[in-house]
């Protein structure tokens, strides 16, 4: 009898735990949806502590510098430090398809390689940041982030997808 009561109590506890977990997940979903509604620029303003100090670049720069065509992304944010000498860069793109993302990743990878080459033995602090930059593709999202907290920032951008 005692064992039966204990078993019932355990089952009830499990059911309660599952109910609470499900409720939390439902509450989280709306917040996740709200974050997804933000543009990449708005997201960057939330994620990057130095956002206000960074300089934004434009579509023509993505094309001129990296050869990324307008059809290969639906949204982007491209920021650098305001001196152009510190190696602090944030490039995030949402692509319309994984195929487009692969093309974009190839372009950004080539760009990063050039930046590493041109700063090596020339701007050592910038080179160090760029050499350790986070470069990733997750589905249709491509990012390259160089900076002291690049890994955490990259994780935040990818979590917001």
């Amino acid at each position, binding site marked *: 009898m005692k064992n039966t009561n204990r078993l019932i109590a355990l089952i009830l506890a499990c059911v309660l735990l599952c109910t609470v977990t499900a409720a939390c997940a439902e509450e989280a979903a709306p917040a996740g949806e709200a974050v997804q509604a933000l543009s990449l620029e708005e997201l960057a303003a939330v994620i990057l502590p130095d956002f206000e100090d960074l*300089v*934004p*670049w*434009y579509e*023509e*720069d993505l*094309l*001129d*510098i*990296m*050869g*990324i065509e307008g059809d290969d992304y639906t949204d982007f944010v491209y920021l*650098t430090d*305001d*001196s*152009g*000498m510190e190696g602090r860069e944030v490039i995030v793109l949402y692509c319309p398809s994984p195929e487009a993302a692969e093309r974009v990743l190839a*372009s950004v990878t*080539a*760009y990063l390689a*050039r930046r590493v*080459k*041109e*700063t090596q*033995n*020339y*701007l050592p602090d910038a080179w160090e940041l760029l050499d350790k930059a986070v470069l990733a593709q997750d589905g249709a999202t491509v990012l390259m982030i160089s900076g002291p907290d690049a890994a955490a920032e990259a994780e935040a951008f990818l979590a917001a997808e």
Partner: protein
Amino acid sequence: MKDILKKMLILLLVMAVLPVCAPAEETAVPPQEAASAPAEEIEVTDEEVNAFFSRALFIGDSVTSQLRVRIKEIQKKDKSFMKGCRYSTAQSYMLYNGSRKNASSNNVNLTLGGEELPLWKCVKKAGADYVFILLGLNDYVGEKIEKGIGWVDRIIDLCLEGSPDTKLVFMSLTPVTRSFCRKKDYRTMWDNYNAALKAKCEERGVYYLDIATSLKDEDGYLPKKYTSDGRCHLSSDGLDIWLGVLQDFARDRIREERAAQ
């Protein structure tokens, strides 16, 4: 009857005289005969200056990269500022590499459209009306003036062969700080190179743009307020001085183009 005839006669006389008194029609003066307004009096708007730079390409090293970033910064508040201007820059890029016909994978290269290209191909690909070039700092070209001018000659040859209608504008080396000159006084070397560059540009019929003089202090150094690193790179104030020189150059060209029409 007589009165009527008199009145008609007077009316006829008045009608005959009126055309003579009327002001003479202005005859169109053929353009070549019209006296042109002096170029410097022709007003040039900011919009026209921005439009000028939409047909320009800037080529250079880290210093020109800084100019590009500064322009982006200004565009945060004024998106029309030098909108459409294109750039092909690479930090640590050298004047020597600019004079090569091919881009080597071993070297730092310029890029345009994501493609690594030699300088003359960037010029050809951009198809700009004006190409502004600032190179030589990474070569320490003040220490090898003859070689440097030879490289400039080669760049002009390659660019004009590939893009005969493009107007090249070689910019003077920018000054360096007193700290940069601690072991060697580069002021005279830089000035001598700039003088030789100017002479070469005049000889080859391309533009030379002096951006150095406005950036110098009374001793010929780059002062602290104009440097970002205490050596050779420029602060926002220094870059704004340079932008002012560029805007004046644009106004002069626009006036020339209008006066020639």
